[in-house]
C-alpha cells in the first residue's frame, strides 16, 4: 500500500506530463486536465507524508529488482517535507496561470515535468537517479524561464541554463567520484562507506557537491545569475523557480551534506556559516537598494537562502529542523509574494502584507515559526554574532518588503489599471490564508521539521 503510493507519487506527474506534451496547452480544458493531474500527484505526496510521519520511512525498489541492484525509491520525512511544499507551490502557480489564460502550448506540460522531476528527486534514494531527476526538472525550468519568448526573457533563460548546467556537470562529476570511492550509488550505502575513504579525496568531492547546490540555491558568491532570471520571468514562473526549484539547493545540501557526508559538513562548518551570513547581509542590502518589486524579491531570495545555509551550518537536531522549517516557510512566502505582486485588486494588498510579515517573521504568520526556529538554533549554538546576524537580516527584510508594499499598494490607483479577475484574487487570498494558518497552527510544520531532523541525525524518521 505504502510503496504503491510512493510509486504513484512519482508516476502520476510523469504520465500527465508525457500526455500533456502532445496537447495544446492554450486550451482551458487541457489546462484543467493538467491541474487535475498535478492535483492527483499532490494528493499522493500528501498521503505519503502522513504515512511517513506516522509509520516511518517508506522504501521500494523500482522494477522488482532485488535490493542493492535496482534503483531505490525512498520517502523519509526530509524528502516528503520538501516534496509536499514544492508540488504544492507548483500546483498553485499552475492554477494561477490557467485561470489567467495560458499563452503557450507547452506551458502545462513543462510545469508537469518540473513537478515530476522534483517529486522524483525528493523521493529517490539513489545518487545518480537524483542527478537524472534534477536534470529533468532543470531542463523544463530552462524552457519555462523563457516562457513569453520576449528577447530579454530568452537571454535570461540562456544565462540561467548555462550557469545551472555548469552546476549540474559539477554535481555529475561529484556523483561519479562518489561511485569511484565507495563503489555504490545508493545514498545509504555511500553514507556508510564514506567514513572509510581517504579524507583528501572525499573533501574535494564534498566541495564539488557544495558548489553545485550553492549555484542552484543562489548563495552569495554564486548568486550572480539569479536576479536577471527572476526579473525577466512571469509571476507564476518566478513563483515556481523560487518557491519550488530553489528547494533543490536546500534539499541537496541537507541530503548530501548532513545525511551522506556529515563529517565533511562538520569540517566545513566555518565556511558554511560565513557564506550563509554573507548571503543574508548581501541579499538584504541589495534588496533594500532596489526599486522594482521583482528585483527586490529576487535579492531577498538570496538573503533567505543564507538563513537556510546558516541553519545547516549550526547543525544538530535543532539546526537541521530549523533549516527544513525555514525552507518550507520560505517557499510558501516566495510563492505568495511573487503571485500577489503580479495581481491587482481589492484585498491583494492584504495578501501581500501577509507574505511580507511572513518574510520578516512577525507572529502570527508562518514566517514567525521559521524565524523562531532560527533563533532557537542560533542561541543553542551559543553564537551571539549569529543571533545578531539573524536579527539584523530580519530588520533589513522588514525595510525592503514594506518599501515594496508602500510603492505598489499605497500609490493611488492608475487609470487603465486592470483589476485581476476574482478567481485569481481568490487563489492568492487562499495562499495567504494558508501562510497565516501555518503560523496559527504550527504543529504540523514543527512535527515535519523535527522528523526530518531526526532522519539527518541518524535516528528513525
Amino acid at each position, binding site marked *: 500500500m505504502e510503496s504503491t503510493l510512493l510509486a504513484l507519487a512519482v508516476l502520476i506527474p510523469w504520465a500527465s506530463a508525457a500526455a500533456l506534451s502532445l496537447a495544446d496547452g492554450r486550451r482551458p480544458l487541457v489546462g484543467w486536465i493538467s491541474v487535475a493531474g498535478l492535483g492527483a500527484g499532490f494528493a499522493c505526496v500528501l498521503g505519503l507524508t502522513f504515512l511517513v510521519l506516522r509509520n516511518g520511512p517508506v522504501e521500494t525498489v523500482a522494477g522488482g529488482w532485488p535490493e542493492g541492484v535496482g534503483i531505490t525509491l525512498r520517502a523519509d520525512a526530509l524528502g516528503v517535507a520538501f516534496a509536499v511544499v514544492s508540488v504544492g507551490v507548483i500546483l498553485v502557480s499552475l492554477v*494561477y496561470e490557467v485561470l*489567467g*489564460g495560458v499563452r503557450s502550448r507547452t506551458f502545462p506540460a513543462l510545469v508537469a515535468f518540473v513537478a515530476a522531476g522534483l517529486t522524483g528527486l525528493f523521493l529517490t534514494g539513489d545518487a*545518480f537517479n537524483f542527478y*537524472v531527476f534534477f*536534470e529533468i526538472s532543470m*531542463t523544463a525550468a*530552462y*524552457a519555462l524561464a*523563457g516562457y*513569453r*519568448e*520576449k*528577447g*530579454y526573457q*530568452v*537571454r535570461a*533563460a*540562456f544565462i540561467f*541554463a*548555462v550557469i545551472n*548546467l*555548469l552546476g549540474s*556537470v559539477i554535481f*555529475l*562529476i561529484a556523483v*561519479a*567520484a562518489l*561511485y*569511484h570511492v565507495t563503489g555504490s*550509488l545508493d545514498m545509504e550505502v555511500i553514507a556508510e562507506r564514506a567514513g572509510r575513504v581517504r579524507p583528501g579525496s572525499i573533501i574535494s568531492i564534498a566541495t564539488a557537491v557544495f558548489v553545485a547546490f550553492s549555484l542552484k540555491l543562489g548563495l552569495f558568491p554564486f548568486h550572480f545569475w539569479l536576479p536577471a532570471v527572476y*526579473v*525577466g*520571468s*512571469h*509571476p*507564476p514562473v518566478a513563483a515556481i523557480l523560487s518557491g519550488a526549484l530553489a528547494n533543490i539547493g536546500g534539499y541537496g545540501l541537507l541530503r548530501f551534506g548532513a545525511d551522506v557526508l556529515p563529517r565533511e559538513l562538520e569540517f566545513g562548518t566555518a565556511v558554511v556559516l560565513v557564506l550563509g551570513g554573507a548571503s543574508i547581509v548581501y541579499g538584504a542590502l541589495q534588496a533594500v537598494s532596489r*526599486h*522594482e*518589486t*521583482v528585483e527586490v524579491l529576487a535579492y531577498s531570495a538570496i538573503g533567505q537562502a543564507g538563513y537556510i545555509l546558516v541553519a545547516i551550518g549550526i547543525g544538530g537536531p535543532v539546526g537541521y529542523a530549523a533549516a527544513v522549517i525555514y525552507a518550507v516557510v520560505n517557499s510558501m512566502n516566495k510563492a505568495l509574494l511573487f503571485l500577489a*505582486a*503580479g*495581481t*491587482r485588486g481589492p484585498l491583494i494588498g492584504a495578501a501581500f502584507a501577509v507574505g511580507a510579515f511572513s518574510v520578516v517573521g512577525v507572529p502570527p504568520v508562518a514566517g514567525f515559526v521559521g524565524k523562531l526556529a532560527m533563533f532557537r538554533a542560533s542561541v543553542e549554538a551559543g553564537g551571539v554574532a549569529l543571533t545578531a546576524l539573524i536579527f539584523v537580516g530580519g530588520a533589513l527584510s522588514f525595510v525592503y518588503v514594506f518599501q515594496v508594499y508602500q*510603492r505598489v499598494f499605497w*500609490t493611488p490607483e*492608475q487609470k*487603465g*489599471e*486592470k*483589476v*485581476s*479577475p476574482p478567481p*485569481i484574487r481568490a487563489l492568492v487570498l487562499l495562499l495567504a490564508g494558508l501562510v497565516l494558518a501555518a503560523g496559527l497552527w504550527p504543529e504540523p510544520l514543527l512535527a515535519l521539521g523535527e522528523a526530518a531532523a531526526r532522519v539527518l541525525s541518524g535516528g528513525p524518521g
Partner: protein
Amino acid sequence: MILILSAVIAVVFGSGAFLILQRDLFRVVVGIVLISNAANLFIISAGLTRGEPPIYPLLEGATIADPLVQAMALTAIVISSSVAALLLSLVYRLYVAHDSVDIEDVSAAEVREAEALERDEDPGRDPEREEEPRGSPGDVGLREDTR
C-alpha cells in the same frame, strides 16, 4: 592510462571553461558541450575495469567489467545532447530577435529598447509602475507590452 585520461579530461574541461567565458553565445554552447563531455569521460574513468562483458550467463570465476559506468555515461550523454539542443534553440531565438549572437550586442539592443520605451512613456505615468499590465491581468515585468 589513468594519467592520460586525467590529462584528456583536464584539457577538454579547460577548453570548455575557456569557451564559456567568450562573448559569442554560440561558443558558450560549444563550451557547455565540451564540459559535459569531460564529465562523461570522468564517469567512464570512475569505473575503469577490464574483464568479460557483463552479459548473462556470466563465466564462472572470471572478472566482469563494470557495466554501471557505461549505463551512467549513456544517460549523461542523452541528457547533455538534449540540453545542447535546447541551448542552441535559445541562441537561435536571440539571433532572430537581435540579428546577433554576441552577448554585448544583445544587451545593447535591450538597453536601446528600454530607453525607447522610457521616451514613449506617458509623462503622467509614474515611472516605477511602467510595467503595469495592459494586455492581461497578472503580467508584471513585461516591458514590451507597454509599447
